[in-house]
């Protein structure tokens, strides 16, 4: 996954022009731009069937969220 994260970070500014679209990154490469994440997931099977990990994210929509986790199940 590190190689995919590195590719994403390197491409991040360039990907701004695809705001609202889903991007697919696997094997450290940008494999495509899609209208939705499901299309990206299906295309991964075609373009990189051997990949075990991939990034699928919607540009400028998927952002880091901070959420609450109260104590109930906090036993990792």
């Amino acid at each position, binding site marked *: 996954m590190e190689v995919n994260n590195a590719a994403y*970070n390197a491409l991040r500014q360039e990907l701004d022009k695809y705001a609202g679209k889903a991007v697919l990154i696997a094997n450290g490469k940008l494999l495509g731009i899609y209208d939705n994440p499901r299309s990206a997931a299906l295309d991964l099977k075609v373009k990189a069937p051997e990949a075990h990990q991939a990034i699928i994210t919607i540009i400028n929509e998927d952002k880091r969220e901070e959420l609450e986790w109260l104590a109930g199940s906090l036993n990792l």
Partner: protein
Amino acid sequence: MASRVFESLTCWPNIEHIQPAIQVTLSTLDGRRVIHNEKLPVDTGFAGAMLLSRDTFSHFEKAELPETESRVYRTLIGPLPMRTARAILTLPFQDDVEIFVDSPRYGVGKTLVGLRALTKTMLLLHGPGSETCLLKKKIP
């Protein structure tokens, strides 16, 4: 004040008589079922949709968010970074819905259903009956 009447569609006994539980099917974005009609604990203290163990999360690694966009949970022991991925959740009597699933970046994790998975459901936590029921509004 208008009264509202509900009827239960289905109920599940609580886990070990204490923990509310609901039946869940969870699939990858390309349609592969990973969890099939399995009864999982409900934790309303977890604000995300679903927490997964590391093993279960490994099935969703082909639709993961970048590390910079993955979630962080505020907990009593400090911020907890997660790995976050897309998945398809199916609850009984509901349409499929795309959700984010999380698994702790460090540690083995556990599997539970959180608040965001329940936003489109009407759920009864029936303490005296030690069961959890899915409801629908009853039209008089």
